[in-house]
């Protein structure tokens, strides 16, 4: 007897491998998905009484492939021979003859499946939705909830994304080394995007979006297992774990964002931090730094500080400088300015920030950070103006509420009227 919860988890974990292989056989996303569903139905009928097979993914691939072939045969015969009942069910003898695909093939299959989802023609949100539906197997309702839109609208979005991909053709040839590295980079970026969709949530919707973080970590772990020698992939999972470990302390009881400095560090998940640190340690042994490893190293310094005051800002500032070299972006410089303000004071930070004004003029965090630095320098009027700009650019109610607090505090002395 096998526990149904066990079967559910085994099916979920076998899914990317199975769907990816079926996509290679049928070269059609819908067929691959239907064949996988059929294989799952058979698994649910057989595994509880007979116990699970040794290799659930291989079993699902074989059963799914045969059922897909049956479907194709049936539809081609239906015109000539209606109600054909000669189609044999799949025996267990056959299932045990599962052809074991080698790891290299699985690796390219799964990479292809994920890469297809991050097609450049697709808007990022469509790519994420598609990956969550096809690769992770979340239901349309679950994805719709995470994106705060109706189920019907999400269904349409996914259908359109699939059509777009079918039109442009799925690349089925085995990728070369350079192509494989490019695909892996695009896929890693998408996985981190999924994580951030869940992580940046706040307010009432935070709970609904949290599964996105767990899915992203699950996909990341899958990639680490397939590409154990890619330090950036290991670094990405380390980064996600170190950030996710803080999630219980990130929002207060009203769903408002609690800044890192003010978080109750006792509520950080020590086991998750330990795993993140171990993965980062492993990645850095390769001496091939990249953006995810550096960001994970920054997250690790925060995780290691028992109190906000113990944070090693000097090291964090240096790591942001490294990140600026690896991936020049005004946003990274903005982050370095925040570290610099802790290290050398608001004046130095402001100086670093000033040249970015033009490029970050429509960026919420730029005006928020600028307001904070000006405030620390006692330049209240300029601070108020910066916060005023920030509040107009806030992307969420939580961000706006935070800036509102700053503005209220600043106006208090100038506003002697009783509340």
């Amino acid at each position, binding site marked *: 007897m096998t526990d149904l*919860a066990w079967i559910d988890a085994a099916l979920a974990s076998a899914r990317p491998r199975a769907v990816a292989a079926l996509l290679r056989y049928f070269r059609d996303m819908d067929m691959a998905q239907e064949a996988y569903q059929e294989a799952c139905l058979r698994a649910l009928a057989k595994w509880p009484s007979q116990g699970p097979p040794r290799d659930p993914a291989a079993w699902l691939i074989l059963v799914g492939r045969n059922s897909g072939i049956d479907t194709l045969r049936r539809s081609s015969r239906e015109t000539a021979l209606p109600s054909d009942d000669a189609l044999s069910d799949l025996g267990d003898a056959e299932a045990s003859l599962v052809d074991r695909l080698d790891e290299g093939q699985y690796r390219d299959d799964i990479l292809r499946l994920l890469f297809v989802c991050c097609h450049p023609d697709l808007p990022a949100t469509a790519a994420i939705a598609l990956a969550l539906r096809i690769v992770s197997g979340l239901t349309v309702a679950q994805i719709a909830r995470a994106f705060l839109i109706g189920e019907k609208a999400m269904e349409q979005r996914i259908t359109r994304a699939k059509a777009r991909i079918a039109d442009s053709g799925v690349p089925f040839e085995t990728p070369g080394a350079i192509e494989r590295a490019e695909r892996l980079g695009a896929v890693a970026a998408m996985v981190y995007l999924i994580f951030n969709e869940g992580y940046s949530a706040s307010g009432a919707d935070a709970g609904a979006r949290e599964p996105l973080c767990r899915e992203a970590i699950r996909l990341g772990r899958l990639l680490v297992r397939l590409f154990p020698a890619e330090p950036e992939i290991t670094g990405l999972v380390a980064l996600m774990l170190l950030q996710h470990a803080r999630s219980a302390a990130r929002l207060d009881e009203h769903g408002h964002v609690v800044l890192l400095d003010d978080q109750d560090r006792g509520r950080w998940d020590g086991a998750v931090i330990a*795993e993140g640190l171990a993965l980062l340690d492993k990645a850095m042994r390769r001496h091939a730094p990249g953006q995810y490893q550096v960001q994970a190293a920054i997250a690790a310094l925060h995780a290691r500080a028992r109190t906000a005051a113990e944070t090693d800002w000097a090291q964090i500032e240096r790591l942001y400088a490294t990140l600026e070299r690896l991936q020049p972006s005004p946003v990274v410089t903005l982050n370095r300015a925040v570290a610099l303000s802790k290290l050398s004071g608001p004046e130095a930070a402001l100086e670093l920030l000033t040249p970015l004004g033009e490029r970050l003029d429509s960026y919420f965090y730029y005006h928020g950070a600028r307001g904070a630095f000006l405030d620390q320098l006692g330049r209240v009027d300029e601070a108020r103006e910066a916060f005023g700009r920030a509040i107009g650019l806030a992307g969420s109610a939580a961000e706006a509420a935070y800036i509102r607090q700053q503005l209220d505090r600043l106006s208090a002395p100038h506003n002697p009227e009783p509340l």
Partner: protein
Amino acid sequence: MLYAILCYDSEDVVGAWSRDTETAVMNRLGAVQEKLASQGRLGPVARLMPTTAATTVRKGVEPLVLDGPFAETKEQLLGFYIVDCDSLDEAIEVAADLGRASGSAGAHEVRPLMLYRPGDASAS
């Protein structure tokens, strides 16, 4: 006689447990261990981090370090060590020393621990 009991399961399945399931399982396992511990029969208990955190060090004079878990099926698990190290590098160095000292083939898999209780059983 002391016995080692090695735990095998699907790490995907275990990794997908909710916090409540995780706590419930650990409590049930804890109850089994508690009984043995009160009789002085429980030695070290350890839970390993997932295989994604594993590194393999092939034995040899020039040890070969490979990212990822030990995946060969032609060798069998013969024993294990628990060592306290400041970094993975240090642990790999220990594994390499052991590999050189053994003078045999095979490998050591280095995996960080998620949980460790030293216990106090001794052979009777």
